[in-house]
């Protein structure tokens, strides 16, 4: 479910990065996970990513959205299309208001899981994306920001 669709957002970014499109989606049900996958796939195509990069980004989005849904009690995914000189990119911002991640190092380790996955979600998503930022505090939720750029 699209919650917002704002185009041509100009934000000050140190690298000359501009956000051209920003769309937000609820992540609160199984159906939402499917919706998010479709939306991110469409965004990667819009960005001009090749098939393998599309698959990387959609898979990372699926991992992060499921984390927010299962561990964070639901949240939102914002998909931003980016431009900077010579490249386009996509940024995923996954935000939940759940319990937060008490031990970030453990949560990033492959094989560590507190849910029903394989424990590759966070670490795997980080490897599939080029820039990865995790912001979490116990009781204050978790926000993951992950970006991948097209190669010219």
């Amino acid at each position, binding site marked *: 479910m699209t919650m917002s669709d704002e185009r041509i957002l100009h934000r000050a970014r140190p690298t000359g990065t501009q956000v051209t499109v920003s769309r937000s989606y609820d992540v609160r049900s199984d159906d939402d996970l499917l919706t998010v996958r479709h939306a991110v796939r469409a965004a990667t195509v819009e960005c001009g990513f090749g098939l393998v990069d599309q698959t990387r980004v*959609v898979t990372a989005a699926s*991992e992060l959205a499921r984390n927010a849904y299962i561990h964070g009690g639901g949240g939102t995914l914002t998909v931003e299309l980016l431009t900077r000189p010579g490249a386009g990119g996509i940024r995923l911002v996954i935000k939940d208001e759940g319990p937060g991640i008490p031990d970030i190092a453990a949560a990033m380790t492959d094989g560590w899981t507190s849910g029903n996955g*394989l424990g590759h979600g966070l670490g795997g998503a980080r490897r599939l994306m080029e820039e990865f930022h995790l912001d979490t505090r116990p009781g204050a939720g978790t926000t993951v920001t992950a970006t991948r750029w097209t190669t010219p």
Partner: protein
Amino acid sequence: MNSPRPTGVPILRLGDVLVTGLLNELDDRSAVAFTDELTERIVADSARGVLIDISRLEIIDSFVARTLMELTTMSRLLGARVIVAGMRPAVAITLVELGIQLTGVETALNAEQGLIALGWQRTPEGPGRDHVR
């Protein structure tokens, strides 16, 4: 006891082999229901082999990977050999980068190769040979 929720995923029987495929639209709950349904069919049909075509799966994330691994183990415990066939190259690359090896899951390039591995063979000669897929 509890009858599985129908997933809409067809499971066909060819002799002692069950043939099925996962669709891209499969959500988490349906994936679990599919596991229940398939294991029940293995017992009901006395299947010795299961071919799962995944050529339509555009991504495999850690949840789907876990489902495939569990399905393989459950089927083996029931005496059936599972072959997962037709993984897309982009999916294989992404799985490796995710750090997932699908340990214990047998794979084949495509459904035909998978069926051959499960004991199905092309007619060595004759007009019907191209009909096996």
